[in-house]
């Protein structure tokens, strides 16, 4: 049976001090080839100093249909933000 090259997600650190960021995806037979292809496809113009490749099937993603229960509870928790607290104007630097 014919097997297609799996899909890989590519993350690139554009310079030291910054986090790796998702750049896109590509197909490759294995991690080594994914790394070589990622270099050619996503860093032809000095876009990065470090690459992560992760086979796409290993990523567990949240479902947008669950966004309500996932993310909405945070909306009514205003007390997690500094502006929720009333302080007199005389208090500086807080």
């Amino acid at each position, binding site marked *: 049976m*014919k*097997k*297609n090259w799996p899909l890989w997600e590519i993350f690139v650190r554009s310079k030291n001090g910054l986090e790796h960021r998702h750049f896109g*995806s*590509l*197909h490759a037979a*294995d991690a080594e*080839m994914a790394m070589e292809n990622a270099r050619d496809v996503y860093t032809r*113009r000095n876009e990065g100093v470090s690459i992560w490749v992760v086979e796409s099937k290993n990523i567990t993603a949240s479902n*947008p249909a669950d966004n309500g229960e996932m993310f909405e509870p945070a909306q009514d928790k205003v007390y997690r933000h500094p502006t929720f607290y009333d302080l007199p104007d005389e208090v500086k630097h807080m």
Partner: protein
Amino acid sequence: MSEKEVKNLEEIFEARIARDEKIEPKDWMPEKYRQTHIRQMSQHAHSEIVGMLPEGNWITRAPSLRRKAALLAKVQDEAGHGLYLYSACETLGISRDELYEQLHSGKAKYSSIFNYPTVTWADMGAVGWLVDGAAIINQVPLCNTSFGPYARAMVRVCKEESFHQRQGFEIMLTLCRGSEEQKAMAQDALNRWWWPSLMMLGPTDAESIHTEQSMKWKLKRKSNDELRQQFIDQTVPQADLLGLTIPDPDLKFNKETGSYDFGEINWDEFWQVVKGHGPCNKERMSARVNAWNNGEWVRDAAMAHAEKNANKKIAKAS
């Protein structure tokens, strides 16, 4: 899902786009949105990949190392652009193999401009200047399109594309400042590429069947005729600078509109090429299909090698 529920979801969806929210692959979307995006994004990816062929023709014959390095880099970018777009397209649930199959069977289209031959070195100049110029005009608005993966791919494509046009114009400029023969070669290339470049921006608004829906989904921000006018208005002064004549006797600056009026486009030719009867349709497709078929054993061998290594690792660990 009931019809009413779908209708409700569609309304929420359209409202999100109207608010300039982006749609991501796992979000609910109308089937027509998915299909339209697969069609347009794959067509775009195919154009990048087939677009490598007319230029690949000149890599080994570039007149200097500088030109050769630039052309090689440009063709490599096109491969990259095809890959960004294919993988963005695959997020809509179609496989790479299916996409290739659609190209190879003729079910999917690619830009008709790549069915014209590149017969002299000046064509490398004209293609970069005109074809990439027209492509940029088409592509820049897509950086803001509603489908997230497409918009992100386009941001990267547009960043890289500007060098393509500049290197093309530089080739033209060098030829135009060269000998009589070189200048004639540049003029000849302009003569052959001008009209196909105008056609590349798509059928007239009256003939364009997808425009209205595409505008709503921000797959299009300006109509084909508007883009064409923009292309002509920006290109004519560049031709003047080169000292070349645009092959259109009806081309004239219109003081009232501030734009150039231009002659009739031969749409019969356009549709002939789209339908597969251009000068190089068969050659382009056979090059693609052969590359795919002849590469099959390499792809299979790489997969077999990867599996063997993975099994070895498992055996070692146990």
